[in-house]
């Protein structure tokens, strides 16, 4: 982990973003994951997305649970506070953190064991509460740190490295997230950064519960024939419905598209999601259709990817709770403590 120090010197020619940071300012410690691990590609995509969004690195809080995926936050956004919580329970900690300070960008990083097994309950509840966050599951269908047991997202019938077939039904987190009320749901593949980076950007910009299921092959335990989460399998069965271009509301729109090939979704803050269609007609604002398309894909053995569902005007937990505009952790004594006269009135009412 942190015993390998990265050189802190930056090449002077590195391009700074509008916030004044280079891409390297969004990096973390050197990864100790296996060479070729899909998680490292996702970390790289998070770094790229954060850099391109011009987010101040310290305005991001990154939280994770336990597992290979949950180690990943060490390897990106080194200038951000991070919290490696307990197994399967990152969602509740992120909910609390978000309640304390509504102004930070919350990045939850989890795995299929962390979110679909021990943490399935908390996963469901953070989606239904509408916590403003980006929740990424680095999904490899296998327990890596404990050496190759199936996880709950492993497809039924897929074969383990030891040759055992999985007899349990798999849990599809994308379907679950849509069902539970997440307002931004996508799926991608760690090996397709052109699809992944804009999805992460759009998710980070989304002002509600955003969930991304990113298939991320485990090179050590789940990258063999018979696995449905291997690089080869996912490349062959990837059914990308769309590619998005995330256009920040502040930018001038210069790119032009052929009419008919693009659907534009304008989010509440003015940002635009341009969905480039890849073949079939697909409307990501239709929740029921999204559920149907994802389920059909599962039936046909496809890995349906892209922006699958988005509510362009989401309402988050702070909206539901009607909290003040400033972060709760900045309220002063005078805001919080009603003082002695109020207490005396309460005393009088209790006699």
């Amino acid at each position, binding site marked *: 982990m942190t015993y390998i120090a990265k050189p802190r010197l930056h090449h002077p020619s590195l391009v700074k973003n509008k916030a004044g940071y280079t891409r390297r300012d969004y990096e973390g410690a050197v990864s100790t994951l296996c060479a070729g691990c899909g998680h490292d590609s996702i970390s790289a995509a998070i770094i790229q997305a954060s850099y391109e969004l011009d987010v101040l690195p310290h305005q991001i809080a990154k939280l994770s649970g336990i597992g290979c995926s949950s180690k990943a936050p060490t390897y990106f956004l080194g200038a951000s506070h991070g919290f490696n919580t307990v197994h399967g329970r990152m969602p509740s900690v992120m909910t*609390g953190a978000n309640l304390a300070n509504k102004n930070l960008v919350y990045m939850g990083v989890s795995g299929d064991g962390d979110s679909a097994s021990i943490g399935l309950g*908390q996963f469901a509840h953070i989606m239904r509460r509408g916590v403003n966050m980006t929740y990424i599951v680095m999904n490899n269908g296998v327990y890596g740190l404990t050496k190759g047991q199936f996880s709950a997202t492993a497809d039924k019938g897929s074969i383990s490295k030891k040759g055992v077939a999985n007899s349990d039904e798999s849990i599809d987190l994308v379907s679950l997230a849509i069902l539970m009320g997440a307002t931004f749901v996508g799926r991608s593949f760690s090996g397709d950064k052109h699809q992944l980076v804009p999805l992460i950007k759009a998710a980070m910009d989304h002002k509600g519960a955003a969930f991304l299921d990113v298939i991320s092959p485990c090179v050590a335990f789940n990258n063999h024939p018979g696995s449905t989460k291997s690089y080869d399998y996912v490349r062959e069965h990837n059914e990308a419905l769309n590619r998005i271009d995330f256009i920040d509301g502040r930018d001038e729109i210069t790119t032009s598209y052929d009419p008919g090939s693009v659907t534009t979704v304008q989010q509440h803050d003015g940002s635009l999601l341009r969905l480039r269609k890849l073949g079939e007609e697909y409307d990501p604002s239709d929740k029921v259709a999204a559920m149907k398309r994802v389920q059909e894909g599962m039936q046909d053995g496809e890995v349906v990817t892209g922006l699958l569902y988005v509510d362009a005007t989401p309402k988050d937990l702070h909206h539901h*709770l009607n*909290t003040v*505009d400033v972060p709760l952790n900045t309220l002063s004594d005078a805001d919080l403590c009603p003082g002695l006269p109020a207490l005396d009135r309460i005393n009088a009412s209790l006699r």
Partner: protein
Amino acid sequence: MPQAIAAVNDFVVKFANVNGSGSASANELFARSILRMGVPVSPRNIFPSNIQGLPTWYEVRVTEKGHLGRRGGVDMMVAMNPQTWAEDVKEIEPGGYLFYDSTKPMASSMFREDINVIGVPLTAITNATYSDARQRQLFKNIIYVGALSVLLGIDETEIQRLFGEQFKGKEKLIDSNVKAMNLGRDWVKQHVDAGAVKLKVRRADNVGDRIFVEGNNAAALGAVYGGATVCAWYPITPSSSLAEAFQAHCKKLRHDKESGKAKYAIVQAEDELASIGIVIGAGWNGSRAFTSTSGPGISLMTEFIGLASFAEVPAVIVNVQRGGPSTGMPTRTQQSDLLSSAYASNGDTKHVLLFPEDPKECFDFTADALDLADRLQTPVFVMSDLDIGMNHRLCQPFHWDEQRVIDRGKVMTAADLDAGKTFGRYLDVDGDGIPFRTYPSTHPTKGAYFTRGTTKDEYARYSEEGAVYVRNMERLQKKFVTAAKIAPQPIRYSSPKPTRYGVIYFGSTNPSMVESLEQLEAGGNHVNALRVRAFPFAQSVEEFIHEHDRVFVVEQNRDAQLRTMLMSEFVLDGRKLMPVLHYDGTPITARFITADIEKKLGQLKVVPFEKAAS
């Protein structure tokens, strides 16, 4: 004629009712009317884990001397529940009184010869006046309060005044309640001999400016005053009313006047695991947060409590204890979560516990706990229980020092970091074991660190090196020593005469213990007492033990949990600490404590101390 207990301002009335029949507010009205006459009362709800239809009791101790513990025994039973008739009648003291609904004739075998029976045809009176079923049910309760007011000499104008306050602005409701009360009063005046009941309430001046409030309500208010902004909870008896009271207080006290927006966030979580997770997330991010729960909730939260302790994140947990283990006795009281709270989680973990004696201390300690949690960067438990939490208790009014400021503990700011102060998240710079922390987003380039439940060095870097681990664990131990100094200190009550005997106790045992000390003293047994108010124990607790030959440790659990903690924390000879244990789910009484201590003292006097100890 049976003998008749005669007492003024010193007796126990118990109401036996059916859950969900609306009796609770009538019974509370009864208790409050006596309070308004300047006579202290101590009421207790005794209820099953059920919503409707099962038996429930309300016991009111009328006590001019202000003994607010449960007395035990019943001088008058108001038997309104046919289901529990036999056991209710059995419970009455010889010479006591049975008040019942005499509408239907009952066989003489249903009564006892050594008690005085007062029959009032409540159902007949009610049905003759009201036709609506719900009205009949509710007003029957008010009618018996009216009847009792004549029998016991309670001033009717106090009851009327209470109606006026309760139904302010709803004149119709006030009138109908007064009418129902008078139905009961008039019937008794016409049909019952004025001297039939020799239990009397006489106006006194012993209430003073004290307030009458439940511990859960008080703790919730303490959380408001202590600056809590995040509350996450999961419903569990007997703590649910605490989070609900926090919501109610916040609605009145914590909304921005202009925008109407909330300066707090309350989440009813999916379970206790999520509740404490939310609290920890908020605490990590610089908001004061708390959860309220009971024993089974603590069991579920244990893993997270270990994380908060080891990663050093503030969290406040109000544990309103109930009877354990497992689901145990959800609606009965105990002090049986000391060990599970103090040492919650795997590995070498110890947590700070505060032991409130009554609602006033529930208020004080919940506010203090929020300061202590920030100051010590660790979970702090407020160890209330059902007896304090869910019963109205007469206590000193709440007070707030206007000069008091929120103590957020050691927080390093952006200015500190820019000034070049060394920031090591787990670095003990002051020698008290407490490091500095930064809130997320403090500074663009400095002060960020990774919070984790794994071992780490002084700069929050992951490390499994033995020496680094030991250094960290020893610092945490040092922090625990600091906690003993800044947590609420014990309170000592000294016997008027020198004595070799001491008693240590805590929490809701206090009123019964104070009463028992009077009884012991009256019986010529001199005992010094120490009320422990926090764990880790102050040094004065050890000194108190060394000062005495024998120390009785009074607690409401089977396994003498406080005694176990005293022995392990101070390395004591266990023979010196004699357990006095009450754990049947009812609140401990002075009668019980006195009898047990007198018995043990008697044995000690027969066997010389040196022999008993050898």
